[in-house]
């Protein structure tokens, strides 16, 4: 394993992996600089860039279609939903980990199983509820159901992290007379902070691209999320503007590229620290 030739092969493989991984995005980026007709007529696409065309495509996507504001909406909604899910989920996970009670394990499993329901089974009722309380077409109207979507996962991951913390730590505090709230707040939270980040990121991951509930709840263009914006790309009964679709792809990939390059190390580190349950 430590042999030099082996190491070189490994590096070659690493680079190849990176190239294969990035290739589809490069292709997407190249297509996004073209006229529609060039995409279907030039195979493979050439690399001569026409700035006027690029400006035009991206202008269309960012401003005319509003992808910029859709991205912002997604960020706001997912951040708020994740924050609430963490606020509610962390104490619950602590209770499952430290305050075992009758049936606590099966309750925890039941909560995780909420994560598994098909969106199609709940989208319509959720929409009707949101409408009844007058939150249709508002940020809270999407945030409320999204909290429910990420909560089970947040709780489940946090139980794992709390379980990892040695019991002596909180038992010592307990003897010192700390209540569970004090222990959770001032002793446990600092310890499990990487876990909270992990849980939040995983919670966010699965609502970032949610489509069905958003489709029901959001009416106005100004509140659309990324996945709603992307859905307008595909329609069977229209010529697809491949260049615009590619530009949408690039625009939606950029924020997550940043995320993926820099934040993934914390996910892995967080998951490693808490080990996966």
């Amino acid at each position, binding site marked *: 394993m430590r042999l030099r030739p082996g190491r070189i092969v490994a590096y070659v493989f690493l680079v190849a992996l990176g190239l294969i991984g990035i290739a589809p995005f490069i292709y997407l980026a190249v297509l996004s600089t073209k006229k529609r*007709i060039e995409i279907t007529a030039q195979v493979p696409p050439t690399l001569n860039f026409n700035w006027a065309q690029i400006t035009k495509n991206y202008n269309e996507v960012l401003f005319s279609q509003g992808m910029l504001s859709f991205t912002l909406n997604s960020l706001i909604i997912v951040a708020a939903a994740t924050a609430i899910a963490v606020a509610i989920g962390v104490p619950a996970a602590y209770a499952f980990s430290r305050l075992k009670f009758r049936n606590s394990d099966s309750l925890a499993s039941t909560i995780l199983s909420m994560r598994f329901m098909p969106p199609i089974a709940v989208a319509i009722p959720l929409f009707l509820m949101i409408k009844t309380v007058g939150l249709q077409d508002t940020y809270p109207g999407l945030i409320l159901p999204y909290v429910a979507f990420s909560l089970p996962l947040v709780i489940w991951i946090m139980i794992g992290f709390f379980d990892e913390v040695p019991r002596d730590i909180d038992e010592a505090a307990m003897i010192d007379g700390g209540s569970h709230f004090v222990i959770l707040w001032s002793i446990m939270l600092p310890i499990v902070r990487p876990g909270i980040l992990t849980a939040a990121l995983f919670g966010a991951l699965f609502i970032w691209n949610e489509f069905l509930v958003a489709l029901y709840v959001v009416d106005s263009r100004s509140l659309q999320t990324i996945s709603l914006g992307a859905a307008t790309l595909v329609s069977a009964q229209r010529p697809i503007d491949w260049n615009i679709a590619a530009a949408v792809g690039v625009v939606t990939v950029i924020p997550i590229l940043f995320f993926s390059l820099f934040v993934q190390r914390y996910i892995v580190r967080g998951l490693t620290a808490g080990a996966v349950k």
Partner: protein
Amino acid sequence: MQDNDEGGSPKKPMGANRRDMLRAMAALGLTTGVLGRFGISAAFGADFDWKKYAGTKLSILMTGDENDHRALADLMPQFESDTGMTLEVTSPALGPLIEKTLQNLQAPQSSFELINYLGFLTTQQVGAGYYEELNSYLEDPAQTPPDWDFADFLPPAVANVSIFDIPSGTLGKGDRIYGIPALHSGSVILFYRKDLFDAAGLQPPKTWEEFHDAAVKLHTGDVAGASFIGANDFSLATVDWFTRFITTGGKLMSGSPQGKDFKPNVDSPEGVGALQMLIDLLPYAPANVTKYGFAENVDGFSTGKIAQMIFWSTIAGPIFNPENSMVAETTGTAPVPAKPGEVPRAIQGGWGLGIPKNADPAKKAAAWLALTWLTSKAFNKYETETYQIDASRISSYNDPDLVTKFPYLTDSLAASSTAEVIPTSLIPEFFQLNDIMNVEFNAALLGTQDAKTACSKVQAQWEDVLRKAGHLA
């Protein structure tokens, strides 16, 4: 007109100005100078008070599948300065659009004052009584601009989306109006390559035999003799099969849903024959034709790889736009082929625009005013000129400037004037029936079953669905 532009802008708050500028910038590539050159307000009557609902905020739910929403975005600054109202546009793709529409129509109050509905859904949506009757607005000179001219709309489009007799549930009967043909109409025409046909000494085909013969003759390694929708796609049934079926004497349904004897004739000789025509074209079609839906056919034709096909006339936009097409100069159009003795005709497409009955009552009159603006002659002409979509007004088809620029309009008008409502669109199960047909026909084109088997399978499944839904005893 210029006064209007200049007078309008300073009153707008900064935010609106910037937004308008962005919109204008985005539209610039396609519409350079159009806003300045093409004065919509000039066309409007002088005495009519366009500003009486100034300040009202309206919302429209419309299709984002075609270019209508782009045209609207281009002209939005004009709308705002003409009427003083603001209009928020929501324009999803077809599936989400239908979902959102039903959701709003069935709610206690619709979030949208204007809703754009597909002609195929008129019976479902208008027939169920969800839309405001518009006759009183239409007849009131204070509400309707003098030059708006309802008679100018294409009669088949009006029959398909506007007029409905709710008591008997009959489309196109009576005189009650619930929606206006908008933002575009459409049917099917033949697109063919003039250069290739001329070189081979051929005339555009008038019969299906001629169509087939031309395909055989023009087929080369680079150019397919003919194409059609071969994929499991909405238009396989509604464009390619249905056109061949009715123009060879087929009658899709007998009886009526109300009479509970709504029986399909898919397995009739005409039905099997129409599908067989497509199967017979396979050797002269693009190699991947069984994967060709709407998008692939437009891509293939506009890159010069297809010699002829019948298609929705709405694709005139991309085909005749040199920006998106290599065959803009060499494409000709003609009516669809037909069996001798049959009128060349195809399916009636297009959209209607109505005001939901459950819209905010305080905004309905304003919504009507906006509706007349959106369906005005000037707007329709702008859409046709800029995006080459199918006009819904006869005046746009006959506009001398437009006809010179876009000769296809003549054929498009002829097709729109003879178009036939597909009878399955009279029941809510339309999309489901269509899906069944596309799946089985696609399988036949893939070679897993012959035309007769495919048609009998569709026939059997359709009868099942119709029975289950109570349209067939």
